[in-house]
């Protein structure tokens, strides 16, 4: 059935995102927060993240463009971006922010400019991925299907960089709530 295929495609796509570290377990948390009473939660949060990040990136560009760079301000912006990207689960963006902050501490202008480019790059990548993901989900829902969740076993196999505990938790929760579709289980 087409819906099933779409679901399978979605799951595969999501898995690759995890494996390539575009997304991490935190994104799963977001997905789990979505329910019938709030069916567009992920979409809303991700949109919010996009708006906020773009603003931050603009501020960062401006701040680093000054003749005399205020590194404190730059660091504050990067910290903010780090926080929101980690809350979304955009792992690579977060990692890029961490590097960025280190160079901010050193007050190294060239390095920070490079970091900014790196962060921007990662951001646009993950933005692209997330938009694709959301689009796939919308298609499934439009076709009458339900959005499948990534099974726990899969998550556990991925090295989540210290989020092992959350992986365990996911197991408990996800199984109870989400794994109700046989097609998904077979994945």
């Amino acid at each position, binding site marked *: 059935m087409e819906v099933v295929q779409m679901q399978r495609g979605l799951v595969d796509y999501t898995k690759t995102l995890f494996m390539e570290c575009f997304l991490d377990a935190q994104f799963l948390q977001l997905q789990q927060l979505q329910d019938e009473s709030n069916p567009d939660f992920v979409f*809303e949060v991700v949109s919010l993240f996009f708006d906020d990040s773009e603003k931050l990136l603009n501020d960062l560009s401006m701040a680093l463009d000054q003749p005399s760079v205020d590194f404190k301000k730059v660091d504050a912006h990067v910290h903010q971006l780090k926080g929101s990207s980690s809350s979304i689960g955009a792992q690579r963006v977060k990692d890029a922010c961490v590097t960025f902050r280190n160079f901010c501490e050193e007050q190294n202008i060239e390095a920070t400019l490079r970091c900014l480019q790196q962060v921007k790059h990662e951001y646009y990548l993950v933005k692209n991925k997330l938009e694709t993901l959301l689009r796939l989900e919308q298609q499934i829902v439009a076709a009458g299907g339900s959005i499948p969740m990534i099974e726990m076993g899969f998550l556990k196999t991925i090295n989540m960089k210290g989020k092992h505990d959350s992986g365990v938790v996911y197991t408990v929760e996800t199984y109870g709530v989400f794994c109700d579709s046989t097609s998904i289980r077979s994945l």
Partner: protein
Amino acid sequence: MKFSCGRGAMSITSSSAAWKPTDVVADQFPAGLRVLVVDDDPTCLMILEKMLRTCLYEVTKCNRAETALSILRENKNGFDIVISDVHMPDMDGFKLLEHIGLEMDLPVIMMSADDGKHVVMKGVTHGACDYLIKPVRIEALKNIWQHVVRKRKNEWKDFEQSGSVEEGDRQPKQSEDADYSSSANEGNWRGSKKRKDDEEETDERDDTSTLKKPRVVWSVELHQQFVAAVNQLGIDKAVPKKILELMNVPGLTRENVASHLQKYRLYLRRLSGVSQHQSNLNPPFISPQDSTFGPLSSLNGLDLQALAATGQLPTQSFARLQAAGLGRPTAKSSIPMTLVDQRNIFSFENPKLRFGEGQQQQQHMNNKQQINLLNGIPTNMEPRQLASLQHGGQSIGNMNMQVASHGAQNNQNNSLLMQMGQPQSRGQILGDTTVSHSPRRPSSMGQPILSNGMAANVASRNGIPETIGATSYNPVSQATSTLNFPMNHASELPGNSFPLGSTPGISSFSSKGTFQEDVSSEIKGSGGFMPSYVKFNDLSQHKPQNWELQNVGMTFNFPQHSSSLQSNLMQSVLVQQGSSGQMNGHNRSSAVVSRAMFSAGDIKEHGNAQNVNQHLNNLVDNIIRVKSEGVFDTSPGNLFPVHFGQEDLMGALLKQQDSIAPTENEFDFDGYSKDNIPV
């Protein structure tokens, strides 16, 4: 993650104004926990809100610290716990933490993407009850209710520890413990006390926990002997051993003298540091919230020392409270000291009163539970803290805390909390309030002192009222007794009557006779610092600023705990003082009762302690009546007079004041002019 009950479940519990430990049903709790989340990052905010909702908590979100503070202030008892981000553009998260701790004494959880050790340490030292690293998982949020329970549990424990262990108190506590205790909690109440200054905590805890013996009541005469001995030796050369020898009082130990001396020294330091009550009080305690934090730290240091000396005040709390409440520059350690003293006085008074009331106490006991609801009222305040409060303006806030913490004085603690909020300047008022509190006691003097302390506390803590009020309410019924308490229980109150003897103000009190007694009894350890007396005078001047008085009354209401009634009274008075200051008698609910108490206190301030006493008595009666009528009906949140509109308090006070012609200030208040204290 998903709770079995649907989203609708949230509304069920959210309707209750505050959850009482006893009310919380095992199967419902922690659903309905009222959480305020503050974060400038909209993404995180939205995620957190959703997660908390999923946990069936009642969530309010805001993206600015200032907004959060005003929400909290408007709705004193409206929240159980606060979650705040560390890095925010308008206000540092730690500053917000301090404010909340001082004003509302709610458990605060900090969170940040920053997991550096120093930042986490900062959270701990500033009193955060937990620190979450972003990204926050829902599992971490599921258990935040433990902090609320722990805090309440500790408050109860403090009451117990204060020495007055009453059956009634014990039982509800035990039952509560049975419901909510967890292994984490059990071993941890000490840790949860971290909210209050660590130093203070340690000191107090040791005192209360290790010393279950009856406290020495520093009666006026005893204090005078002490002062005489100190003067004879010279303040610099006065060592406890020699003082003890000179005093030649059987049964008095060197330790008693030592602690009393500490408080006395703080008191003196405060006096010398406070040339003008305004200048002293205001700057140190009250500063715009934002600005105060800077000095707070310094103050805290100072306060800590003072407190450490007295072993009571959580300097930080005081400083913050003061800063927060008064909006004056906090930083002055000198003031905190005095406040502390006053607080002690209060604390003493409160517990005393309570006992006297007996029956009332029973009521309080019942109320206790309600009091617990007082969200985050730092019941940990030890009586000593109160004393320390007297010392410093800041201490006022502390005093509240102290009062609250007097274990025995559970009630008081709450009140103390309120008081904490009040900046030291309030402390003066507190003194007054205390006076008012002891309407029962013939010696009005005692009361004024308390009120001073309380007022001070009250003033500083505008934000506190809510929490305090709740607690104070219970004492309301008792409060009346409490009011009298300071006065009445001269013998009972361990209070140090420092103020009585040493300072000129005190002497004036002594002339009052009754008052002195009260004072001494009230002032547990702080030894009745004069400041409180002085404050009293000032308070009278500050009629409009009766907030302090008002609060005082309120705080007294609070002392519900049996044993700690006395201290509670003080605390409650103090607390109320603080809160009333802010409220200005607006809160009608239980606050009214407390307010009435304040009024009495106010009146007393005006100078004629004795007259005041009478008035207070009347007031107390009225209050009690009022209280019985409406106070207890109010939801737990309302119990605490703190919530009361300040207008109500003010009204009550003013009414009282009108009835009681303010007598000339008998106390020579050397530094505190009430007028100057910005309400």
